[in-house]
């Protein structure tokens, strides 16, 4: 009975995925109305919040790219908030503040290491913009990014807008190549049907724009998030998106607002990043299930489906994988999954090469890596995430550096 139920849910998830991706292609090419109406004359004041922890010189490059934005310089400010980095990030921020005088850059520092979510909230306290854009400090932004994001807020019911995140280093390793495929598919396909109903389930924290008044309403909730008393400092982007929807606003990803992030280049880093994300997904699922009636009555059905099925998929995939391996231990060795994944990866590779040359993946072996990663992702990460929901470890930031920071703070 149980395996049959699992298979049923899996088939449902697959069916919805197939429908979703098919719908994405139809909407992308045939329904211009699925896209938001952008008004470039709408130019609200913008505060770009850049929380930072141990990013080194990258923060300088990030601020540099923002300084080149095609947006009236007097209409936006950058607030760089250092979360007590153990390296020279803070010095790089100050350097950027000194050198990029064409824009207003404020550099602040937390009193103690607080995690990204609270650092964003601290930066919010310093900001004045009508639109708040939260960015990652390891990203490079397209000059049009701010203009593209703000243009979407001309629709009054839009609460949050995200940009498309590309990979800065697609050919650094097989690991980064794999992520290039994943990111591209997520933004160019998976989120398109969600865009249609203005109900994107998760806007990436790399480039996240939100109305100030909305963020101020949500801020206390961000600060008070906890897991049985343990403060939660991860997954603030998913939480913010979710809260935007629950507050009755729409969410949207504008794929013309571009930024490029530095993807983890080693398996270890990728595993930790994915583990952190998977915890956020599971936490979000628990939240959704806990407040399901509120979701069902208040939100668009597509939003509910997205919020329930998207996080449910890795859990089901895990159960399916366990069931498959226990009934047929050599199932993974069959050619069907390999061919399917290779086919998907090849199609994505060609699409990236044609439509996003900057992210072209050179190494064909990355296709094989994509297959292997899918198995690892389904089997291990979900299990580990389920068992370490209490972890506050960011993962991609080294313990040594955190320890050295603690030492320096105490001194």
């Amino acid at each position, binding site marked *: 009975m149980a395996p049959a139920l699992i298979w049923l849910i899996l088939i449902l998830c697959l069916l919805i995925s197939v429908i979703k991706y098919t719908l994405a292609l139809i909407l992308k090419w045939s329904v211009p109305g699925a896209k938001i109406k952008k008004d470039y004359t709408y130019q609200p004041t913008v505060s770009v919040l850049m929380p930072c922890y141990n990013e080194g010189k990258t923060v300088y490059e990030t601020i540099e790219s923002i300084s080149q934005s095609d947006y009236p310089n007097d209409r936006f400010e950058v607030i760089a908030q250092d979360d007590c980095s153990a390296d020279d990030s803070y010095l790089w921020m100050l350097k950027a503040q000194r050198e990029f005088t064409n824009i207003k850059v404020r550099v602040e520092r937390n009193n103690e290491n607080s995690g990204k979510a609270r650092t964003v909230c601290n930066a919010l306290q310093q900001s004045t913009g009508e639109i708040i854009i939260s960015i990652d400090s390891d990203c490079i932004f397209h000059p049009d990014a701010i203009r593209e994001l703000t243009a979407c807020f001309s629709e009054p019911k839009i609460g949050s807008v995200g940009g498309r995140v590309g990979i800065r280093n697609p050919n650094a390793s097989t690991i980064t190549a794999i992520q290039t495929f994943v990111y591209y598919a997520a933004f160019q396909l998976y989120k398109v049907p969600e865009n249609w109903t203005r109900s994107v389930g998760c806007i990436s924290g790399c480039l996240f724009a939100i109305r100030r008044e909305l963020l101020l309403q949500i801020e206390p909730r961000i600060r008070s998030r906890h*897991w049985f*008393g*343990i403060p939660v400092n991860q997954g603030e982007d998913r939480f913010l998106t979710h809260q935007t929807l629950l507050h009755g606003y729409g969410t949207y990803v504008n794929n013309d607002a571009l930024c490029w992030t530095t993807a983890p280049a080693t398996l270890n880093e990728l595993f930790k990043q994915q583990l952190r994300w998977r915890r956020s997904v599971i936490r979000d699922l628990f939240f959704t299930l806990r407040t399901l009636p509120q979701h069902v009555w208040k939100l668009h059905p597509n939003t509910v489906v997205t919020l329930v099925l998207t996080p449910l998929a890795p859990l089901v995939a895990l159960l399916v994988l366990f069931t498959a391996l226990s*009934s*047929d*231990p050599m199932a993974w060795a069959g050619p069907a999954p390999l061919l399917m994944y290779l086919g998907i990866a090849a199609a994505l590779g060609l699409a990236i090469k044609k439509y996003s040359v900057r992210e072209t993946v050179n190494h064909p072996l990355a296709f094989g890596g994509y297959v292997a990663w899918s198995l690892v992702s389904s089997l291990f990460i979900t*299990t580990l995430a389920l*068992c370490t929901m*209490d972890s506050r470890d960011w993962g991609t930031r080294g313990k040594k550096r955190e320890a050295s920071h603690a030492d320096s703070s105490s001194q």
Partner: protein
Amino acid sequence: MPTAAVSKVESKKTVQIQPMIYRSVVTLYRIIGIATLYLVLAGILSYAFVMGFYAVNTSWAAPVILAPSDDKSLDFMQKIVTSKQTLEDLKVDEKRLESSISEMIGHRTSLLNLEPELQDAIVRERTHNRAAGPQLSQLDQQKQADNLKTQTIMAQVKQVESSIDRDLAAGLITKGDAATQRAALNQAQTSYTDSKINEVLLTDNILEKNTTDTKSLDVLNKQAELKSEIAQLDIAINVAQEQVREESQQIDRLRKAIATAKQTPYELITSGGKPVYFAFVPYDNQGSVAAGAAVYDCYLNMVACRKVGTVKQTFAGEEHAIHPIFRTDVRGFLVQMELDRPESAKSKTVFLNRKPFFF
């Protein structure tokens, strides 16, 4: 106590209790989480070890419980019954054919015996005709000459008849004499007519003797029919004998097939009696199998093994089975085990000839 004060105390209590509850929940969660992770880790390592072990081990066999109600057993029984029925039918048919051949051979012999007699009769008749023909022709010529003479005489007789009438009218003779004379003349006329008839009959008889008439043709036809019937009998006998040979061979083959089938495990289970135990051995593990080899049953399918019986016999027929661990299709054969511990027949795997880890 005022309401405000009560709610303040309750709130204070909640503030004190909630962290304790959280701590307990988190502690419990961590214990369960760590246990789960270790279980998962153990599961993954076990999975990898079991996969590796069964990939290299060459002494395992998978016990198979066969029952008379299994599809294969039922199929086997059905085939045996059908084969036996076919065998019986073939035997009956063979006997029928043999009787038929015997009958045909007897009939043929009779016909063969009849043929020379017929041939002799024809020869005899022809010989007789050849001799009698010329004699009759000569006699016919004499007869013709005699009749010519008689014809001349008969012309004179007519004159005599006229003279009788004249003599009677003249009163030279009495009426009685005249009647007597006339009767004699009539007698002579009749004799002449008979003689002419005999001449014609003789000519006809000569024709029969000297030429092939329809009677002879009938006889020849009968002779041809006789030969044809003999030839047809020869063919029928040959066909029947060939059929008997083929059926005989088929009977032999069926007997061998039934004998072979009786040496399969399915015969053992369908014939009833005491329970019999089997194990599937993949071809890769063939080297470990011999009659009398020890059978070991192990905990967790690989350790702490104990001897539970021996291999009684091996069966030659190829069998297909699902690999007990890999779940892939495997080719191999069955062996019969004599088990001291019948419950080992329900184990996932047993090991033949040696323990996998020497313990």
